[in-house]
């Protein structure tokens, strides 16, 4: 077997616990394809224990920006990281500090945000440009952060180092993700009885923005405990900021007043409230034992994803699940914001083994709990599914029990299709991609308006392309860029003036229709990152930018025409050259 040269990789992860867990999941996936990676990580305090417990990370450096007191401290913390150059430095964070650090850490190849030598923000790779373009314009997209990080690194390694190792399709999330040390057994009745189910509900500061107050959680606990005798519930109420055990227990007492004595007695051995802070090791062991973790906490969701434990995410409807929800198959999300709706969704989930998600809420509740039909329908319940590569890859959240669909989600689906076309050179079957959108949710007039505006934008971009081609033709004929005749100078300046007008028109066209905002955002990033002191490469770059944007608008038109007509899938017509990469297909990378 061929032994590959080790590739030293430095990871910068200065985000919170959720980001750290997501980054670890993507690194584990990349390691399957590139086992010769030697990963060292510079992490924030929130990610330190997570990274230190992951056996596939060789060294972890703590860079706690909140406790550094002086410039000297900052240099001392980084001393060993700055010592020996890495092959790749990958900044997974979005903080300003991390961008400076990425540039300072010696490495051959950089990914993520960095700094130009004049201190301005640098975008080192195409996937970062994609997320930046969306972030700048406050747009949503449909590719999960874990998939983006993994694809970013996989593409870079394949293009610049070696082909990936062919291996099996084993899932990345496993219960042995972290190394755990014995930390004393959990002395709870039935903890070690494997047929007994354990469910935990987190009641913490994130609960303030969700339905998880003490009364709702108390009601939910009682409903769960009544639904099965082979089930116990743990409430994790670790915050000092208001939600507390005394209120919770009094709510339990209030709601269980009319229940039987036997049931009330059983609560002592089946319902537990932990208010103390668990050590990281103990927390891992607790989460590993759960059947379901019910939480609003992004860090806990990501941690449970890494451990392969199912979650019920109590989220408000503004959370972009496709980007930052729990990653994996079978995770649930409820947008319930009333006790009844939450209880209805919980009971539906708890009985999933029986209905397998195939029953609608009215079929499920009508005979047993008809009063829950309306609350269940009032908010969405979603379930995650990992899509196979041929269906576009990534994680998809589908509604269960009912079928509402938010029209605004169509644009976020388009953004992920655009990313696959531009960055992976392929377009999924549009009919299949759009199949989950019910026809009654499609607003034909809005789509026609979008298509009209896209036509105008396409014409503006074509004019820009024409001007760039003329500029290129002119500068190609110059004998020298340093010494030009007055006529040539005037001509070049004339083209520059016309391009500025085009830029203004692009921004104006995209501001009229927010659905097109991605193109003006990308236009700015492309030109900002076009670096050369010579006219000819600048002209070539601007031709590539206009051709790419024209192709993107063409994809936008195909996407919405398909949605409007519901015709059979057709691949996007190629009106410009296909972007080609040095080797290999990106299809198998999960996107």
């Amino acid at each position, binding site marked *: 077997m061929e032994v590959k040269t080790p590739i030293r990789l430095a990871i910068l992860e200065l985000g919170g616990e959720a980001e750290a867990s997501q980054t670890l999941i993507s690194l584990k996936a990349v390691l399957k394809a590139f086992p010769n990676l030697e990963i060292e990580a510079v992490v924030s305090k929130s990610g330190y224990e997570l990274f230190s417990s992951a056996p596939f990370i060789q060294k972890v450096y703590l860079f706690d*920006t909140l406790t550094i007191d002086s410039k000297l401290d900052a240099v001392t913390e980084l001393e060993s990281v700055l010592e020996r150059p890495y092959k790749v430095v990958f900044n997974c964070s979005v903080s300003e*500090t991390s961008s*400076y650090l990425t540039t300072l850490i010696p490495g051959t190849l950089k990914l993520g945000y960095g700094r130009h030598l004049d201190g301005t923000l640098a975008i*080192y790779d*195409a996937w970062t440009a994609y997320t930046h373009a969306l972030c700048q314009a406050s747009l949503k997209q449909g590719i999960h952060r874990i998939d983006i990080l993994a694809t970013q690194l996989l593409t870079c390694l394949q*293009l610049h180092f070696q082909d990936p190792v062919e291996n099996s399709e084993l899932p990345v999330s496993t219960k042995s993700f972290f190394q755990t040390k014995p930390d004393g057994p959990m002395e709870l009745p039935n903890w070690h009885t494997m047929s007994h189910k354990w469910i935990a509900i987190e009641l913490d500061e994130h609960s303030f923005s969700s339905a998880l107050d003490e009364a709702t959680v108390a009601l939910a606990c009682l409903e769960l405990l009544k639904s099965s005798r082979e089930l116990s519930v743990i409430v994790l109420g670790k915050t000092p900021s208001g939600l507390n055990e005394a209120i919770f227990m009094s709510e339990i007492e209030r709601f269980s007043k009319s229940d039987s004595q036997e049931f009330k007695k059983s609560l002592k051995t089946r319902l537990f409230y932990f208010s103390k802070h668990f050590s990281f090791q103990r927390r891992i062991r607790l989460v590993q034992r759960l059947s379901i973790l019910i939480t609003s906490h992004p860090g806990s969701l990501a941690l449970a994803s890494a451990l392969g434990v199912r979650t019920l995410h109590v989220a408000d409807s503004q959370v972009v699940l496709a980007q930052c929800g729990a990653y994996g198959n079978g995770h649930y999300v409820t947008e319930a914001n009333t006790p009844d709706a939450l209880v209805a969704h919980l009971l539906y989930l708890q009985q999933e083994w029986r209905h397998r998600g195939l029953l609608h809420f009215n079929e499920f509740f009508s005979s047993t709990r008809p009063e829950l039909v309306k609350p269940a329908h009032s908010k969405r319940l979603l379930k995650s599914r990992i899509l196979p590569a041929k269906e576009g890859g990534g994680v998809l959240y589908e509604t269960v029990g009912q079928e509402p669909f938010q029209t605004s989600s169509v644009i976020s689906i388009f953004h992920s299709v655009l990313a696959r076309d531009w960055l992976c050179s392929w377009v999924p079957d549009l009919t299949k991609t759009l199949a989950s959108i019910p026809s009654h949710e499609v607003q034909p007039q809005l789509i026609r308006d979008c298509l009209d505006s896209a036509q105008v934008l396409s014409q503006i971009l074509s004019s820009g392309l024409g001007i760039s081609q003329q500029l290129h033709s002119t500068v190609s004929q110059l004998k020298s860029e340093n010494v030009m005749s007055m006529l040539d100078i005037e001509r070049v300046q004339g083209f520059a003036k016309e391009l500025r007008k085009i830029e203004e028109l692009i921004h104006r066209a995209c501001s009229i229709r927010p659905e097109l905002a991605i193109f003006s955002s990308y236009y700015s990033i492309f030109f900002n990152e076009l670096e050369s002191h010579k006219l000819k490469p600048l002209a070539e*770059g601007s031709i590539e930018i206009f051709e790419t944007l024209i192709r993107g608008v063409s994809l936008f038109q195909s996407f919405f025409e398909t949605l409007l007509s519901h015709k059979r899938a057709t691949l996007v017509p190629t009106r410009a050259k296909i972007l080609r990469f040095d080797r290999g297909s990106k299809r198998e990378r999960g996107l």
Partner: protein
Amino acid sequence: MKESSQIFKFGTFSESAKDFTDEVIQSLFEGMWQSIIKEQEAERHGSQDADQTCNT
């Protein structure tokens, strides 16, 4: 290796940090230090969004 596209880069080949001039290194460290101070101030003001500054 040649980049396949001018606008779609899959990683940027970096200038070696040891070739940076002292002025560049000083200025990058100063920039980092200023951003650390900003994060600490944001934390003191109870902001939860210190790490969400990708629009800078």
